[in-house]
């Protein structure tokens, strides 16, 4: 079976259309990030989470109002998995105390529900600051290492193109997290696993980009007489089949993770699904065109 063999799409000629789509997506992402913001997990802001299982299905809204009375402040209550609840409370009392308050309040208001705490997670604000710092360092560190590597292996224009594509991908994925959090039936909070997912997206998007760059580098040596624009176009077309096949297989597995991976990995898998789609798009419509534009400018000024 073959798909898109000997394709000859005019990617470089129609790159303006790509710029417009990317610009719209990035703008929408930035606007949403500014207005709607992101849902930040307790890893990065401190707090406590309790996963509560019960004999009968509890109503989220009713539990929220029960717990608002008991805890004195409104906690976040969400459904977790098929039949459990996730309660997230702020405050600095002892975890044991908060846990007992929650359980006894649910027992009182929902007789026969037999609530039990299946899991807890508590992070002090100070520790959260540390985790946040670690996350920021890993993001900056990754970007730097990648940029330096591309610089060493390719010429600087490729480095700029790759990094532009990375920012493009991460901004839009973040934007999608911002736009949809609260509207989808699973958690889209930014926590440590999501940071890991983002960095994987960075690695993945780069993977795609590098394959195209590698081909451009190779063809530049072979087809010396051709226009650079055509070389880029030919490189994208000749790697297109591979790009789609690997994106496809990776998309398969992350979709499997999304469906079967359980509640803990759902946000992570979602980030990867979005990231892979955007990353594949960007290696064709952002990274290579940026290299082309930079090259053209260099030729024009010469």
């Amino acid at each position, binding site marked *: 079976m073959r798909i898109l063999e000997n394709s000859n799409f005019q990617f470089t000629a129609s790159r303006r259309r790509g710029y417009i789509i990317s610009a719209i997506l990035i703008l929408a992402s930035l606007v949403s990030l500014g207005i709607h913001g992101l849902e930040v997990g307790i890893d990065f802001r401190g707090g406590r989470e309790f996963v509560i299982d019960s004999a009968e299905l509890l109503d989220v809204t009713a539990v929220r109002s029960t717990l608002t009375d008991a805890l004195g402040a409104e906690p976040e209550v969400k459904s977790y998995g098929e039949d459990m609840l996730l309660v997230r409370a702020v405050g600095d009392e002892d975890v044991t105390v908060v846990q007992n308050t929650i359980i006894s309040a649910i027992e009182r208001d929902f007789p026969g529900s037999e609530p039990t705490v299946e899991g807890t997670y508590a992070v002090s604000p*100070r520790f959260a600051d540390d985790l946040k710092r670690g996350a920021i360092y890993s993001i900056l560190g990754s970007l730097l290492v*990648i940029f330096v590597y591309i610089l060493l292996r390719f010429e600087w224009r490729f480095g700029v193109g790759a990094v532009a594509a990375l920012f493009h991908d991460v901004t839009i994925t973040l934007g999608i997290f911002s736009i949809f959090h609260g509207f989808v039936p699973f958690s889209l909070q930014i926590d440590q696993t999501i940071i890991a997912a983002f960095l994987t997206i960075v*690695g993945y998007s780069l*993977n795609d980009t590098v394959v195209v760059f590698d081909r451009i580098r190779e063809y530049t040596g072979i087809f010396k007489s051709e226009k650079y624009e055509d070389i880029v176009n030919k490189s994208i077309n000749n790697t297109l089949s591979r790009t789609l096949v690997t994106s*496809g297989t990776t998309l398969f*597995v992350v979709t499997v993770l999304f469906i079967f991976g359980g509640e*803990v990995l759902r946000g992570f898998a979602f980030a990867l699904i979005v990231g892979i789609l955007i990353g594949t798009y960007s290696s064709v419509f952002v990274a290579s065109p940026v290299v082309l534009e930079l090259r053209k400018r260099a030729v024009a000024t010469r």
Partner: protein
Amino acid sequence: MQGNGFKIFLTAFFLVLSGYYLYPSAQKYFLNQEMEAMTAEERQAFKNDNVVRIRTIDEKALNLGLDLLGGMHVALEVRVDALVRELATDVDEAFEQVLAAASEQSRASTDGDFIQVFVDEFESRDADARLSRYFRNEAAGITRRSTNAEVASYLQTEAGEAVSRAMSIIRDRVDRYGVTEPSIQQQGSRRIIVELPGIDDPERIRGLLRGTARLEFRLMVDPAENVRALQRLIDFYEETTDSTEVADADTTFDVNELLSSEEGGSGNRLLDVMQPTGQNVEFGIVAEEDTAAVNQLLSDPAVQDLLPRGIKYMYTSAPIGTTTDGLELYRLLGVRTEIELTGDVITDARVDFEQFTNVPEVSMTMNSEGARTWARVTGANVGKNVAIVLDGVVYSWPNVLQRITGGRSNITNLDSQEEAQDIVTVLKSGALPAPVEIVEESTVGPSLGAASIKAGLNSVMFGLLLVALFMIVYYRSAGMIADLALILNIVFILGILAGFQATLTLPGIAGIVLTIGMAVDANVLIFERVREEMSTGKTLKASIDGGYAKALSAIFDANITTFFVGVILYSFGVGPIQGFAVTLMAGILSSMFTAIVFSRIIMDYVVIERKLAVNFG
């Protein structure tokens, strides 16, 4: 096939190595299966007979993370600020201010060196001030003449020792509690990570880890002085209570009504939150909710002057009762700040039961020096009360009937036998050199863990199946070779994890699933190249040669960047994220190997040795 000898050797070598490292994991699996089939008694007997064997297998088998096994993870931080305060032999207002400011600063810049911050802060306030003034300590060699740098290095040493002592004490407590395969590790300079698989009572563990276990025997306030101080305090808050403060006190109005009927809503800020009693050593009775408010009122510097000299007020451990609203009420007792005896003199502690009521209590035995002091203290204070204080809470305050010789004492008024047992544990392990704080903790119940394992296994299986099928459909017989490489790849990843004693977490499994998707990438790159070569009319063998050779640089460049990301994630991430990073890195290495080396061996074998055609679809 010439020239492939080394490649075959390498593949076989890695395969044997993976097998060697994975063998204990397989043994563990079959052992568990075997034990599952037994009855409870048989299982116990089997375990007893095979203690060593089971332990060896457990040690060498692939570690599962707490998110899969279920259990408790706790990150503790040793409070260096509290330690510094304790090391100070002389404390004044200025010192307290510097300490508070340094705490605040180091809170902002985390895991920063608290002692450095403290010294800098101290010197920035008064460049000529000497730290030695506060930390003079003959035994440690800190004299009036010691420089600030010397004091700082003394503090650093003490802090470092405090952390390592805290670690060994916590290890001892965990061992006494009885956890199978606990892990206790230091992280950074001030943190201790405790991992406890299969814990079903996190509340007890929290208390056990955090309890400083400072046992103190103190004399108590003189009853007459106590009553006078109480009256002075009531008067003080009567006078200073103006209209704005009444509004302030309104929040506790309801509680107050339940507490004392007479003074209810009197507008006196102290009486609003405390029922005064002034009987013997008792100052008053306070509801659980109001303890913070009462502490606040008592800590007012103006109020401190009104209290009896050398006396501080502490709450009792067990409530004396509850209000109709279910609020627990505690006594507030006056104890001397001077400590007569500490827990250091305790040589043995055990759970006992009160002779008549059968209520659990802790009985303690002191060493000879402690026994002498105890005899002297009790002898000099017959008819008075002594307080037995553990971690700042008064457990009992018996009236001394006669001089006590023999160095025995009890801690009574305990909630349960578990509490008694935990106190014995902490007393035997010794007191923590400085308070510790739980900065992060997570508990995963066994059913959540089991659900995660199932989710992980399902994802791996379906992911593998889907990708393998696709490869066969898309690349035909070449796809089958890629699938073989894929399966070998998973064996290698698990082998690497077991070999490096890495822990498999749920994000780690996610990393394996992701690797399954990305691992075929290298083969896809190669196969696409082979197809291109074949389309130019080359022979199968030449196309395969060309495909492998030309795809190499792309495979290398594309994988190495993702590998870097893995390295960075591993260095900055914690716990589960590190698990993900490890499988990601292992996956990249093994997928490059299987795609470039292993699939080539098979390809050459089929094409050259067997003279068969490989169909690239």
